[in-house]
């Protein structure tokens, strides 16, 4: 197990290297000039040149690339071109908010979605099953930013139950501020997990060992939770991984609409302003999370499915 973990961690290195290279190249190909973004469109040529020189943007690309990689290895992403704040500080200020939002919304999505899926599977082709289908359809169809705006209008503007923006201060303030954004992101997750749970469970419930359990007189609850659900967990773990990744990407729009601090909002602002060091660090953070979530899911598979454990 330890050897497997070490090998998987080593696997991360080339992937991260590739991501770093891609983001570096993409930033330089995209039209846009950080000097213009900082100094404004009326800045004269001399001012723009002085800025580019000071920030090392006039250095040969290979030199910028080597410097960037060397800094990344030391986890030193430099300073923001726009604010001059160390990027480590920016990430430290924003990352906890994104992680908190991701965990809360995934937890909410699972808490609502899995029981709904179980209930729908046990009520196949009856109204609860049809209701879940409709719920899933809406969940898949409504974009995060649109749902966010609707929730804001209804629950914050009209009813005044939730704050309009920000992340709040303290535990209760944080909880109060995170509920609407988390519900926004959890809506799709619950629809997805509900549908996935239903499908997986129905598939397992048609197997011989479930029929045998029923024939032996096992109670329905035991059949579902002990014999069926445990065996349906593998696809559900895949779903969980996908859910976490979808939440990370969805957090970009949600953080903007709710004006919450977070890596997504930081990244979008940086892209608009062509703040290369922040973009590079932000994308790397996202890539790192994707790899980490995948690794986590692989470990979950090993725990959930003994066959994989034997093979590994």
């Amino acid at each position, binding site marked *: 197990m330890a050897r497997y973990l070490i090998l998987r961690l080593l696997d991360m290195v080339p992937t991260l290297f590739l991501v770093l290279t891609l983001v570096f190249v993409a930033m330089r190909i*995209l*039209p*846009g*000039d950080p000097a*213009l*973004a*900082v*100094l*404004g*469109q*009326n*800045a*004269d*040529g*001399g*001012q*723009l*040149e002085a800025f580019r020189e000071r920030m090392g943007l006039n250095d040969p690309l290979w030199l910028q690339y080597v410097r960037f990689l060397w800094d990344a290895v030391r986890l030193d992403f430099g300073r923001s071109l*726009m*604010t*001059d*704040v160390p990027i480590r*500080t*920016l990430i430290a*200020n*924003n990352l906890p908010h994104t992680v908190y939002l991701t965990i809360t919304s995934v937890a909410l999505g699972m808490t609502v979605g899995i029981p709904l899926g179980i209930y729908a599977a046990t009520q196949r082709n009856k109204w609860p099953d049809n209701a879940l289908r409709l719920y899933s359809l809406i969940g898949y169809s409504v974009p995060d930013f649109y749902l966010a*705006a609707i929730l*804001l*209008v209804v629950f*914050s*503007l009209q*009813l*005044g*139950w*939730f*704050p*309009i*923006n*920000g992340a709040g201060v303290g535990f*209760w303030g944080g*909880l*109060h501020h995170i*509920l609407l954004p988390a519900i926004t992101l959890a809506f799709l997750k619950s629809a997805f997990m509900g549908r996935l749970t239903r499908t997986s469970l129905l598939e397992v419930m048609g197997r011989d060992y479930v029929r045998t359990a029923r024939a032996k007189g096992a109670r329905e609850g035991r059949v579902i939770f002990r014999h069926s659900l445990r065996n349906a967990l593998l696809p559900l773990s895949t779903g969980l991984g996908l859910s976490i990744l979808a939440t990370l990407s969805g957090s970009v729009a949600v953080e*903007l*609409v*709710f*004006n919450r*601090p977070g890596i997504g*909002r*930081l990244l*979008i*602002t940086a892209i*608009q*302003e*062509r703040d290369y060091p922040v973009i590079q660090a932000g994308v790397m953070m996202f890539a790192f999370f994707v790899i980490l979530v995948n690794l986590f899911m692989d470990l979950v598979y090993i725990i959930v499915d003994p066959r994989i454990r034997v093979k590994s």
Partner: protein
Amino acid sequence: MITRRTLLGTAVAASAAGLFAPRLRAAIPDTLRFASAAGGPRRLDPNQTTQGSDNWAVVQVFEYLARPPDGNFGITPNDFEPWLAESWTTSDDAKTWVFTLRRGVQFHRGYGEMTAADVVRTFVRARDEGVNTANYSNLAEIIESGPYEVTIRLHNPDPMFLSSTVTARHVMVISKKAEEDLGEAFLTEAVGTGPYELERFDTERGIFLRRHVDYWGEPAIISNIECLYIADTTARTLALMSGDVDMAEGVRQPGWVPQIQNQKPDLLFDMTVPGSFNTLFFNMEKDPLQNILVRKAIMHGINKQEIVDALQPMSRMVYTLNPPNYPTGFALEDLPEDLRYEYDPDEAKKMLADAGFANGLTIQVNTSQREDYSTQHLIIQEQLRQIGVNIDLTIMDHSAYHATNRQNLNTLNINSSSLPPVPLYVFNDYAVSTANMTADGKGGANYSHYGVAMPGVDNLLAEMLQSTTFDDYVAKGREVELQIQRDLPMGGLPTLSYLVVRNPRIDLGYEVQGGYAYWRFCKAKIVA
């Protein structure tokens, strides 16, 4: 008997009631909250700010030597009132300016009294180290001629020195000692003399200010100012509608103001006139825009009144490069008839035919996705279609748009810029040959290549810069304006006011009519 289940249930219900009960969104007492359309604050040092939104905090914390009336620009030298300087004199050649400083002005956070040394340092750093040193290149010497007196010598005469330099934000007076003490931290913790001082600079949330208790003038009425940053339009609008913020930057696109008025009729709209200049540049290095008949045809094909109507109530008519209420701007009736370029599609078609384009022509144009740019370009595209000019429009993100403009990749680009009534600024930025835009991105904002692709106004401008009186300066500036109108390397499009929506509970204490895209809150009071 209270069971464990009852206790738990009651606790959950109470928490939920507290959490979900309709919250009276009472504004924070004695605090004005302003939301600007940006991701987060960058800097507070007035000489280093590069983001317009940060100026909302800057203008509360720092002050000029002299200042125009609240809510407006100063147009003539007589429009300025003494502020950190009690008085000033100027030499006959308008090259030497002597400022006598007010005594007893205290800097924030215990940095002591303002003296001539602080003012000298302020002007020197604007000239030598700031983000806009070019605007201060006329400063030859800045001398501490007494503990409370500063003498400034210029390379060239400048009868508009108060508006061109003294009231530009880079020379808002800073504490020399604080700059030395704080080092790099001065960028975000800068120390000034204004009615508000910095309480907290939070890169994620905004800039928080509190009343400066040792302020030399009338103390600010409201105790705290929160300059918040809400980039997303929906979030900002909702924050305003709910009363979460008192003032918010508006959206300059058709229909936005009426829509907000419909939903909340009591909201107030503050607008600067003229606000942003919108200028249409003809890239004279691109076919067929070298041909003046084509340029004239395009100007005749644009119905400016239609643009003004579409962008009401923010838009105002412009006939030359500068708007009519600026010193060198022209009203329609003051212009010679052949330089008015009034909407006349038949005349436009005739000119195109004379230029060899009787069957029309197609021009590739890039525009920004930002609403003020894209709206105008889309309207112009539709209007020019009527005269046979097909605009093949590519909409791109704002940063990419300006970058491609600077790389000589655009043909009919619009530039929007908020400029004070100093003719030199707009001429220097857009019309002189030294600002010529070059494909390597190292040039300036003269996107037309005026003065390079064809003779320009460099000589007329040089004459204007030798003027020693305001009247002479303006007269020569108007000649420059007319010459640009004759050559037509660029044309003025309707201006677009900077727009702020205000909760009626806030009374600013004055009316916003013009000025930069930020204003002071020290006279504001909470009236409800």
